[in-house]
């Protein structure tokens, strides 16, 4: 039987990039209704721990303590067509290493945009959800100081777009621009790990308000969604616990509810950026409330301070993420026969606990108008079992751990 090789979407996108890049000017374009622009990052990562490995999001694998060029690298291409003053179309592809990548996942934007008037626009298709300050451009390394977004804040929910609609309103306010956005739709993502899962997000509904001028950016957002975790292991576990609750371990029933594959998740986020001629300071805080042990609620945030010194901006960045509740500990069962079930249940619960802080020091050097070189050192402290955001060689690590990760990236626009 002839086995056909699956065409990797990253190769398609790179081919398109090389096809066009020789013909394209830089980010600026000449007069045209049709524009193509792109961005990319070439990144090198080196972690030092053999069991816990850095990853940008929970949809990635880690290279652990090997040098790695692929996981922090990407390339994106965006095409826009402006049919009339009121109607335009957008399409963005991203090639990036993620778990269970596909052509569908590579499509970041695919929308029709209709300007009702100069202040109001309606967009349909694959559109921005925009819950966090940098959600809409999370893959465009050139837009921020660091070699990667703060993992404690952006790593747990690797979602940028929804299939649905959003409505945007802009209005001048004081010396800046006030914007509000509503969005509604659905999406999904994959979690890579010992208990790998697909998570479907339905009834995604959110709103944000923001204001920005040349120095300040402020944003508040609220969003909610219904999450369904699809994983056969968890389904089997739920059935076993249910059966155990009937046959001699009644307390097991309490945990089947917690393994509920459907959960409502609510996100609250606030962010601020101060960008003057000398300083670049940015911070976000986020609160996630859920009713599921498979997607437990967290409090997370980061603070970044950068000092501009000509073309070089050194920075320091602190990120933190902590589960709202203590790690769930399953009590000993009444019968020895249930111990394996209790141990496996505890193993599953341990995969979803977060207690992690990172301190980063680095610098960005703008070597060309559209090219930036960055270096960064992350020092991460992880509590016992608190390593949901990291990749694990064999399940959650039972003791506190510190790990160092080093990054070098070149971010560019074309």
């Amino acid at each position, binding site marked *: 039987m002839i086995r056909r090789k699956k065409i990797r979407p990253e190769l398609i996108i790179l081919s398109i990039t090389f096809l066009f890049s020789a013909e394209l000017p830089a980010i600026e374009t000449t007069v045209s209704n049709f524009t193509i622009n792109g961005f990319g990052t070439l990144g090198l990562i080196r972690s030092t721990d053999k069991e816990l490995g850095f990853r940008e999001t929970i949809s990635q694998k880690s290279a652990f303590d090997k040098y790695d060029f692929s996981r922090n690298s990407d390339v994106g291409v965006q095409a826009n067509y402006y049919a009339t003053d009121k109607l335009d179309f957008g399409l963005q592809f991203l090639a990036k290493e993620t778990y269970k990548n596909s052509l569908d996942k590579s499509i970041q934007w695919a929308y029709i945009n209709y300007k009702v008037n100069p202040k109001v626009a309606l967009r349909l298709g694959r559109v921005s959800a925009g819950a966090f300050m940098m959600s809409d451009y999370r893959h465009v390394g*050139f837009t921020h100081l660091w070699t990667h977004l703060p993992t404690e804040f952006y790593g747990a929910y690797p979602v940028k777009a929804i299939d649905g609609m959003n409505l945007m309103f802009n209005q001048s306010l004081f010396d800046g621009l006030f914007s509000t956005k509503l969005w509604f739709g659905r999406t999904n993502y994959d979690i890579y790990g010992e208990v790998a899962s697909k998570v479907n997000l339905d009834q995604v509904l959110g709103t944000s308000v923001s204001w920005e001028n040349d120095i300040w950016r402020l944003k508040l957002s609220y969003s909610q969604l219904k999450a369904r975790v699809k994983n056969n292991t968890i389904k089997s576990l739920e059935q076993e616990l249910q059966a155990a609750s009937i046959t001699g371990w009644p307390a097991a029933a309490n945990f089947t509810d917690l393994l509920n594959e459907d959960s409502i998740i609510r996100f609250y986020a606030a962010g601020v950026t101060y960008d003057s001629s000398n300083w670049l300071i940015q911070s976000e805080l986020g609160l996630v409330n859920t009713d599921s042990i498979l997607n437990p609620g967290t409090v997370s945030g980061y603070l970044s301070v950068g000092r501009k010194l000509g073309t070089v901006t050194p920075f320091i960045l602190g990120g933190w993420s902590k589960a709202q509740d203590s790690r769930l500990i399953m009590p000993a069962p009444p019968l020895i026969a249930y111990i394996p079930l209790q141990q496996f249940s505890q193993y599953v619960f341990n995969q979803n606990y977060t207690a992690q802080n990172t301190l980063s020091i680095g610098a960005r050097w703008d070597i060309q108008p559209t090219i930036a070189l960055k270096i960064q050192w992350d020092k991460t402290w992880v509590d016992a079992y608190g390593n949901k955001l990291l990749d694990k060689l064999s399940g959650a690590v039972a003791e506190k751990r510190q790990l160092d990760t080093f990054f070098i990236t070149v971010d560019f626009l074309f």
Partner: protein
Amino acid sequence: MADIVVIGNKDIEIKVLSKKQVIDIYMGRKSTFPNGQAALPIDQDKDSTTRKLFYHNLVDKTINEINAYWARLLFSGRAVAPLSVKNGSIVIDMIKNNKSVIGYIRLEDLTDDVRVLNHVD
């Protein structure tokens, strides 16, 4: 330091733009003049000293910061960066032929074919 002037077509209603109005147009916050007429801003070449001076005087940003700003807007689907042309002569030619176009040049390159809307200093 060279003076930079913002210029527009001589036949448009608008006689002057405030610095804030120029910022709103060049930072993608507004796509119209104050009277509601469409405004199409154009930039000079990315390596141009005039461009560097313009943004330094207008919003105290470097070219890299401006490029990062527009990348943020462009790749989040919010707005498109101003069109770019090679030099001040082309800016003047485009403005002469299109009432919507607004651009910037050095004061020493100014001609009678266009109207000065703002001095950016």
